[in-house]
């Protein structure tokens, strides 16, 4: 809905260039294997590929049949096979099995593996160990960046989070550096880089080295500033339930390049895949809105639409013709979109009602505020007992542990240990008076019959060892004072993305650093965030013209993923301050994806 946007906000660069580059390079790679070939594509590369290429284009370059990589024996009859995969050991092992099975059957074919965005030595080791190194040629498709929307670019690497933060594997650091390098060479030079986090520092270093090694031609800078932030700087925000329209759709229907709406939404007898982006005129107006505003907006739209259609009554032939040629198409499209989003809102409302969403939100807000913790614990305990949803229970436990870590005094010293030792989940102790958390641990242990819970919460508490959420929240004023009315229709700050209860820590940091042009004055905050903050000034820009525009375009890179709520908050901040944010993320996450990344129950 129309916010009082600053008029002077600069235009965003055109990122379709990234798609074209990736497509051209893929064509080049396919031509390196001349002749008819079958192409096997890794499942999670299919949709990103769909965004930049199509079947006709692949067919034009001698691709005969397309298959999904499924870890089962293949049935291709082609004598050339090309695999387009992520550099994952499991997939390479499957390819090795496939090649060896062919060998055993006396089949001779040409094989090529295209790793994207890059190959790893470990993958080549597999080829060597399985005795097929040399039988298979390898290549790299430097497809780093997929523009998801005008202001969102994704690396499409959900595993970045787990690999980097849980396993401590830095394999994606260079990838992050290369992604930045690509953007820098196309839309740079960047004049200032801010960052916080261990990984952010390493990615910056990797990028810097790559810049030093390549020649940078002088060009007009389109993106002035860059902000790098590690996900472990702020785990609280992505663990909260999302209430902004786009975030809520992601929480409920799971946006994965597009969203699949079931028959309950489409009011047809089959489900439908829908692209949700700024092309959808209805969506682009409600995506950043608090869910409670969406109904009113959609109702108003429906009324307007009705009026527009009603105009045709009493028209003469000529007027009718103008109406049909000029307005009807637009109206029909709007009508289609409107009924889709009304259906989606209705369906989400039903689902959330079933879940007692209101109470869940209340608990989350209390946790964020540090208020009524006992009641929250009771609620979480009951949530676990009733087995409402395992992922939600774990999420709440993690929120509890993250938000309460700094506030141990009120619980006595034994709880400091309890919190720090959340890794010892699955304890089977009977409830002792005042020992709520231990009892809860035992319940989580019962909830799942393997070590999942332990692994998970253990991982989180060790990841966020020094979570000082309460102190940070006070210092940065993340939680608005209670008692004040918050009008969600006219948001006054970024807190609106969480019903006015909490300003996302990540976004608040970005706001503060941009305002101060650095970390000065935030020393205490960075100390509580385990340090690793930096700011680097690049070459001074002499031309004042570029200064004004590109300086207000800020690329924010989230290492480990970001949520739609954070994107909405940044869009709001941009409108308020006259910035334009471009979000570069390793993947779009939400609380469920974050939790699932921690699960360890697959073999």
């Amino acid at each position: 809905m129309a916010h009082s946007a600053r008029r002077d906000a600069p235009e965003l660069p055109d990122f379709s260039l990234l798609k074209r580059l990736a497509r051209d390079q893929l064509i080049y790679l396919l031509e390196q294997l001349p002749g008819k070939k079958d192409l096997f594509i890794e499942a999670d590369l299919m949709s990103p590929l769909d965004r930049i290429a199509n079947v006709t284009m692949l067919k034009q370059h001698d691709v005969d049949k397309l298959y999904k990589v499924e870890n089962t024996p293949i049935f291709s009859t082609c004598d050339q096979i090309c695999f387009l995969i992520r550099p994952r050991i499991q997939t390479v092992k499957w390819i090795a099995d496939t090649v060896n099975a062919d060998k055993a059957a006396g089949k001779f074919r040409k094989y090529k593996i295209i790793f994207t965005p890059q190959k790893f030595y470990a993958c080549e080791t597999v080829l060597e160990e399985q005795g097929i190194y040399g039988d298979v040629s390898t290549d790299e498709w430097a497809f780093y960046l997929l523009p998801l929307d005008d202001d969102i670019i994704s690396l499409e690497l959900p595993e970045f989070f787990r690999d980097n933060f849980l396993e401590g594997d830095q394999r994606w650091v260079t990838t992050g550096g290369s992604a930045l390098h690509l953007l820098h060479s196309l839309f740079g030079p960047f004049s200032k880089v801010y960052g916080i986090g261990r990984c952010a520092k390493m990615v910056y270093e990797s990028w810097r080295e790559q810049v030093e090694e390549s020649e940078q031609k002088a060009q007009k800078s389109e993106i002035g500033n860059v902000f790098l932030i590690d996900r472990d700087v702020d785990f609280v925000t992505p663990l909260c339930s999302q209430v902004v329209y786009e975030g809520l759709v992601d929480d409920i229907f799971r946006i994965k390049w597009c969203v699949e709406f079931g028959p309950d939404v489409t009011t047809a007898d089959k489900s439908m895949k829908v692209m949700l982006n700024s092309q959808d005129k209805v969506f682009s107006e409600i995506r950043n809105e608090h869910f409670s505003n969406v109904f009113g907006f959609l109702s108003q739209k429906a009324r307007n639409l009705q009026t527009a259609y009603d105009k045709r009554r009493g028209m003469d032939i000529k007027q009718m013709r103008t109406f049909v040629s000029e307005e009807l198409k637009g109206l029909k499209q709007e009508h289609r979109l409107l009924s889709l989003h009304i259906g989606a809102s209705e369906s989400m409302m039903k689902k959330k009602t079933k879940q007692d969403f209101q109470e869940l939100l209340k608990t989350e807000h209390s946790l964020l505020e540090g208020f009524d913790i006992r009641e929250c614990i009771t609620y979480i305990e009951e949530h676990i007992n009733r087995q409402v949803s395992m992922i939600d229970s774990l999420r709440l436990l993690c929120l509890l542990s993250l938000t309460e870590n700094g506030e141990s005094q009120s619980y006595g010293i034994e709880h400091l240990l309890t919190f720090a030792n959340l890794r010892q989940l699955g304890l089977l102790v009977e409830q002792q008076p005042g020992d709520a958390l231990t009892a809860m641990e035992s319940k989580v242990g019962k909830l799942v019959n393997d070590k999942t819970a332990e692994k998970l919460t253990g991982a989180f508490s060790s990841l966020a060892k020094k979570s000082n959420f309460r102190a940070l929240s006070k210092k940065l004023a993340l939680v608005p004072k209670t008692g004040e009315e918050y009008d969600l229709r006219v948001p006054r700050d970024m807190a609106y993305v969480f019903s006015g209860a909490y300003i996302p820590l990540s976004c608040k940091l970005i706001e503060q650093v941009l305002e101060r042009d650095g970390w000065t004055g935030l020393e205490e905050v960075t100390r509580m965030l385990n340090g690793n903050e930096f700011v680097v000034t690049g070459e001074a820009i002499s031309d004042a013209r570029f200064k004004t525009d590109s300086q207000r375009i800020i690329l924010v890179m989230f290492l480990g993923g970001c949520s739609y709520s954070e994107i909405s908050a940044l869009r709001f901040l941009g409108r308020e301050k006259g910035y334009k944010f471009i979000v570069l993320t390793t993947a779009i996450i939400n609380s469920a994806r974050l939790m699932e990344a921690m699960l360890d129950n697959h073999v």
Partner: protein
Amino acid sequence: MMRSKPDEDDYWNSSKCRAFTFDDDYDELSSLKESKRAVNSIRQFVVDEDEDEDDMVKVSWSGEPIGSITWSIKETASSTKQEQSFPKIDSGPSLPRQGSGYSLSSLFKAFSEPSTRNFAPELRKPKSEYKDYVSDWSPEETVKRMQRGKFCSLETFRSLKDKMQLLDQAVCANDGNVITAVCTHVFLQKYFLQCKLEVLSRELMSRDVALRHYIHYLKEMGEQKLLVELFKSLGRTEDMALLQYREHLSIKDEVRRKEYLKSCISLPFPPDDAGHVQDHYTLLERQIIIEANDKHLENKGQVEVFKKHPRKASILNMPIITTLYYSCLQFPFKLSLTLPSTISEKQYLLTALSARAKLKEWLDVGSLFTTKNWLGYTKKRSPIGFHRVVDILHKNNAPAQVLQEYVCLVEDPNLKISLAQKYKCHDIVIDMYKDQKDRQQLIVYQGKVERGSPEDKKIQDILNNTQIRWKN
């Protein structure tokens, strides 16, 4: 766990909606419904002229846009299946393709980025040409070359000191890919045997970053045995135990899985975890018995509950609460005798309540809360708060009478009255206002009930009663 989730949801989330407010905006939903009706009524008009929908993407039956890669792969998949059932010698004509006259490769070569790595030219050089200077590379240069994806021989780093220098250099470069590569070269399996794990672990212990990379690599490679040995020599026995315990996930056969779990009990877990593993074993053992028994009963088709509620999934490997719920569905209170000590009274009550409510066995529900005192009077007690009980009953579509009975038991008068209003237990609301002598509220409430209904009459009678001394 996750695989069985839908089944669990079926067990647990089968309850009905409850009124939900988002900022107390009740009316928004109804206005939304109106909009929906309005929009749908327009549809008629739109559908009539829908032929020229050229702005819409054509979609196949599954909803994929036709011509998309995802769609095409599905097509191949279905045609592959056909090939399997109708074997052909020829794979059939491939889809027609448009010939491309031009090649992009020539264009692209000139365009090639500096960062594009090229392995092949390096490999093609005659061996004699690089052999000499390879050995001269310092750890720094070697790591640099590896980062660029250039050919490197690590054979020249032979002494332990050289190897460690190389490893440290890789760690300094922050490139996980290179760190892992150096780890695998430095700690080849044969080296493991030669130099004994103690040496290795001594060197690795002080190199946490490298160690984590190596552990992750071994995990991904499925090098279970090596990893167990590594943890052992590092003194990380708990990690070792967990790793071995994790193996049970790969055992499909439940009897073998059970036996494996039994063998895990003696692993060096911290004491609490050991208890947990023991419980896991006991649970699976019980589930195997229940499963065998129920499968048999279900096949015979004589047990009423299986006819009414066919088993959606096997009970094997379900969490303990789900198992309890499952048992409560069939044998209401049999299991309570052998209730595992690890389940609290609250948990048992909630579970049994949900199960019996789902079966609409309201009498059973009642007996869950009934306690007798020494005089033989019965009283209803609940450790979980009766407002919760009411909520669960409502979600299971309990009849008004049952709901009313439990709303009555809610202690907090404010909560009670709001619940009574919510679930339309008119008698309770009316009686409470009467007791509070709150004439105003009663009049307001009269406006909410149906005119001429017994409730309406009751309120009227009370309002007409001159005996009552109203407070307002």
